């Protein structure tokens, strides 16, 4: 059981801040999904977390202690792109890991490789992109590490192997190990992760338990009889994150207590008031799309 604490992480390349004041606490034994559009800084967060890149400022603690080389006995990392040696065989990579890590289980590694249909005698250069990902995943899951950091662990994999990776993640979680993974496949995150963090342009924009976010975040929709209506300050309510208006239809993104907001909207004269569920993809899109995405956004307090 290992916890990770990232506080106020910053990483700049020249003028550009790839990560800009990122703080996150990853409790021990949880599966944490890191989401974000391309270039949001997910990979940079992983690299800074693991000391692969020097942080401009900020602090990363593993069980309350800063990272030292020995910490890597307890961290297994799958990078975003293949880092396998093209000229080495898969079996030689297994041997490399056996020599590097005390807890590495070569038998388990070969078992996992067989499950992914990877021939250990093959050289890396003969493997497809997906197979390379599978090799790195197999090596990481044979590490018996309490912390797994997986940057896009399913990229290039076919749906069967993607599902297999999810099962492996779930298996690790059941053993009490922590898994932090990023993925563009929100459906996978939705299944495997209990906790998510959404990054956008180097910042943390949303964080919480997936089920809580789904329970709390709702869309409240109402239709007014004509275009001249007043929301009676509902859009100012702190529980309302966003209000969109198209003609006579009002859609409110609420943080929690949707039923109460629905009642208020009905009280303002709206008919056909509905409360709509949001799945993780909706929640993600609301979190990362810029506030001025549509011309229909009613600035808070203007109504």
């Amino acid at each position: 059981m290992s916890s990770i604490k990232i506080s106020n992480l910053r990483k700049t390349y020249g003028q550009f801040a790839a990560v800009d004041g990122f703080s996150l606490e990853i409790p021990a034994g949880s599966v944490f999904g890191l989401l974000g559009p391309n270039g949001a800084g997910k990979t940079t967060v992983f690299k800074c977390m693991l000391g692969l890149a020097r942080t401009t400022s900020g602090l990363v603690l593993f069980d309350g202690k800063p990272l030292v080389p020995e910490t890597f006995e307890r961290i297994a990392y799958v990078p975003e792109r293949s880092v396998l040696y093209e000229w080495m065989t898969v079996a030689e990579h297994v041997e490399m890991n056996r020599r590097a890590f005390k807890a590495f289980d070569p038998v388990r590694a070969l078992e996992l490789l067989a499950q992914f249909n990877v021939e250990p005698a093959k050289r890396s250069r003969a493997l497809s992109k997906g197979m390379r990902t599978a090799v790195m995943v197999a090596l990481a899951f044979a590490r018996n590490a309490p912390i797994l950091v997986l940057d896009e662990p399913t990229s290039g994999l076919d749906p069967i192997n993607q599902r297999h990776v999810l099962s492996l993640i779930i298996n690790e979680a059941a053993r009490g190990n922590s898994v932090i993974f990023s993925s563009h496949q929100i459906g996978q995150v939705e299944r495997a992760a209990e906790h998510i963090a959404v990054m956008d342009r180097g910042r943390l924009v949303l964080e919480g338990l997936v089920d809580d976010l789904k329970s709390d975040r709702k869309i409240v929709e109402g239709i007014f009889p004509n275009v001249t209506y007043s929301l009676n300050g509902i859009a100012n309510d702190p529980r309302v994150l966003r209000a969109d208006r198209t003609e006579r239809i009002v859609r409110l993104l609420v943080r929690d207590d949707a039923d109460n907001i629905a009642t208020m909207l009905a009280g303002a004269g709206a008919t056909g008031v509905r409360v709509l569920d949001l799945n993780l993809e909706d929640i993600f899109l609301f979190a990362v799309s810029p506030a001025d995405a549509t011309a229909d956004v009613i600035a808070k307090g203007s109504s």
Partner: protein
Amino acid sequence: MAYVEWLRVGRCLKCTAWVLLVVLCLIVAAEYTFLNIGSRSSLSGVELHTSSGDINASEILNGAATTYSTLPDGTKRTTIVNPAMGIRVTVDDHGYFGKHVEIFERSVKRSEKLVGIGPVSLQRTAVPGGSMVTIDTNKPEDFAYVAAIATFIALIVATILGAPFARQNDGHLEIALTNPAPRTTLGFGAMLADVAGIVAAWLMTVAMLFFAHVAHNAPNYTYGPRDTEVIVLGFAGVLAWYAMLCAATASLRRAYGIVLGISWPVALLVAWLAKADLGDAPMAQLLRWGATPLSWVDPFSYLHFGPAFTVNGRPAGSLAVSLQNELPALLILALIYVTLAIIQWRRVEA
């Protein structure tokens, strides 16, 4: 990472072994062709430069009296006497223990010369009534001759292996940097593997030369203090050379191949410019002025690879000698370069 480096060294040594094997075959074949002096067939096509002009060696046989005899110690002696040309050839074939050939010419040659190439020595001396050329195919061979060639091969292998850090930086840094061992340890481990590979290449070359020798002749080496100097200084030079390449590439990610490729011409040019007599032209002085400080940090400036010939008993070009000045310089260079490589590599980011 050291494991990967060992694998890489293994692959490199496998290639080196193949190359050495091919060279061995070539040497054995060449020795068979050129050193088979004395048999009739081998004389045809050979030009002899005599006082009476160039003649084909087989012409000596025309009108010559050839006698074969076996001496009490088993030596097969062939004597060819051509009174018309005033030439007398005596070939003593000791079989595995080499050949001793004496060619007497009636013409008078004043210049005396002794040339040695490895175990082969050629000597011309003035004797009463003419001159005598003596050829020995199995003279005692200075081990330094073997060591110098092995050092040269070791330098090539050092150049091939010379970028362990850049190779790691090129897409595999994540593996090295998420390893429980500290970076410095990993760096030294990789360099140690390479150095072991370089030493192995040196030994393989010595073995190859030995086999090339024993294919035709009994081993007949001499070993003296100077040979130790050549070996020690050669290793120091190779070490410094390898360390320099490591330092030059430790921060690189891709272009390390170019650095390794131009290292030889650049280093040789610098070493040459610093010493060559270019005259007093301003440009020449500028070149020397620029090259001299560079030559201080260039391991090649401290290694001398003269051709391993001896003329009149002296090396025609000097092998690496003079331990007093050059050994400390090379070791200090190696140390500085290793430190520079490690410092740079510790700062590389993925």
